[in-house]
């Protein structure tokens, strides 16, 4: 699962992408896209995080088990967020 030597140019490419995305998200924050602002900011953050996980953290070259575990943890986080927020969203309903 590990021991895979990633060529540095991939690291640099990922780094460049992260930098561009950072600039993009700052730029986007100052434009008015309405509710889309939040979507864009979080979307870019997710892309950046995915890049770091896949390349810097070598998950792209790793075994299936790590994939399963990461998705498991994200599902659990999703459970926590979605169910609790659903409570707040439906507080007024009867």
């Amino acid at each position: 699962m590990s021991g895979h030597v990633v060529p540095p140019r991939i690291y640099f490419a990922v780094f460049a992408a992260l930098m561009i995305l950072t600039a993009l998200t700052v730029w986007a924050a100052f434009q008015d896209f309405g509710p889309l602002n939040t979507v864009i900011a979080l979307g870019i953050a997710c892309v950046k995080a995915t890049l770091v996980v896949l390349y810097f953290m070598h998950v792209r070259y790793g075994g299936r088990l790590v994939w399963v575990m990461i998705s498991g943890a994200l599902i659990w986080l999703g459970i926590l967020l979605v169910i609790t927020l659903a409570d707040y969203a439906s507080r007024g309903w009867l």
Partner: protein
Amino acid sequence: MSHYLNHDYGIRSWLLTKDHKRIALLYLISATVMFMIGGIFALLVRLELLTPAGDLMQSETYNKMFTMHGIAMVFFFLIPAVPAVLGNFLVPMMIGARDLAFPRVNLLSWYIYTIGALFTLWAMISGGVDTGWTFYTPYSTAWSNTNVLVTGVGIFITGFSSILTGLNFIVTIHRMRAPGMTWFRLPLFIWAHYAASIIMILGTPVVAITILLLALERGLHLGIFDPALGGDPVLFQHLFWFYSHPAVYIMILPSMGVISELVACFSRKRVFGYSFIAFSSLTIALVGFLVWGHHMFVSSQSVYAGLVFSVLSFVVAVPSAVKVFNWTATLYKGTITFETPMIYAFGFIGLFTIGGLTGLFLASIGLDVHVHDTYFIVAHFHYIMVGGVIMGYLGGLHFWWPKITGRMYSEFWGRISAAIIFIGFNLTFFPQFILGYLGMPRRYHAYPEEFQVLNVMSTAGASILGVGYLIPLVYLFWSMRYGKPASDNPWGARGLEWTTPSPPPVENFPVTPVVTEEAYAYGTHGKESPVG
């Protein structure tokens, strides 16, 4: 012969040990101490409730008693009991490994547990804490004048010992299995621990951050749940129960694993429906995370959220029922003997059945409104926690005691004390179901007189239960020195842990075992001689 107990001597060899078996014994000692502390608080609570007027102690004192009873029992006994003692000892042996994957992390987890326990004990000695083990805000953040901060720090620290234990088990079960030990040859004890470990690593961090936020609010005015700032105390309840409900499964799943081993061994038969029991553990671990809101049916969470939590709570009851049916079916056409561990297993199945069925009352949202926060819920969770977890723990402790110490305990006293515990338990907690339905709220220091008869019964039962717990403490301790030496496999049980000497050598197996058969291959190799 050299084994893990005698290959090295001195306190240093224990406090710096990296042997999972010795760490299990360290946990056994500290968990027993915490159990006795929690037990003393419980007896004081029951004594106070003998009379309706609340005249034994001040209400401040009483509130601290039930709080510290809950904290000591939940965080420092029930959660580590089966996994950190029996699991630590048995997980590597059952899968044919020399140790856990990270022995130093394992030792670290015990030190973390101990430091957390010392913090909490310090908080108890220097004035105590009175928030209830649930730490509901804003009472805990703004109104209680007791040692909430120190207690919170203690529980926060201890959480990491649970995380590290779970982490160790998961990696060990994935990576350290002996050749031929496929997933579906694993003993059900391992499946149960794997499922519990998932909860430990995914739930515990949430309660850790929750307690931390509470501490920040109390100590540094970072008002995350403060209604004065527009914060929501119900959010605290969401975060708290996201861990603390699944925590129930951290306690009960490993105990269920023990019961699967006991029932198979003393029926001399493969467990009925192996894969169904295995998968029911995983189902409980997953669905158990979706039901936390049933602790909040009257908290003013939304009506629809309540309904969703209610239906999921009913769903999670099904895999538990499946386990009970499968254990019962295992007895069919078995060759059953009634040694002490088996008596505990029978006790577990009976009490857990009642605990589970009364869970249906609470999952039923319209009925829960009435019994919520009454003695009904107290009775229910003691049937699960004491009737389930502790019965399984004691059964397992007796079952593997010969392996752990190399000595047999007194079978006579074992059976007597199991019976006393069973009777005392029911007398203590069954009346509380009725009390609860009559409407006696929990955490009451004084109560209306019409509730007295049932409270007296409960207190009488508690004293019997207390005696029942003291007897094993005496004869188990006695057996360590004077007990009959145990053979490698005194019960004629299957499983890798019974193929090594009692007590086992330092690295468990002289040569790494190769597994060629299913778990619980009773019968296929002819009957082992019954216990002598």
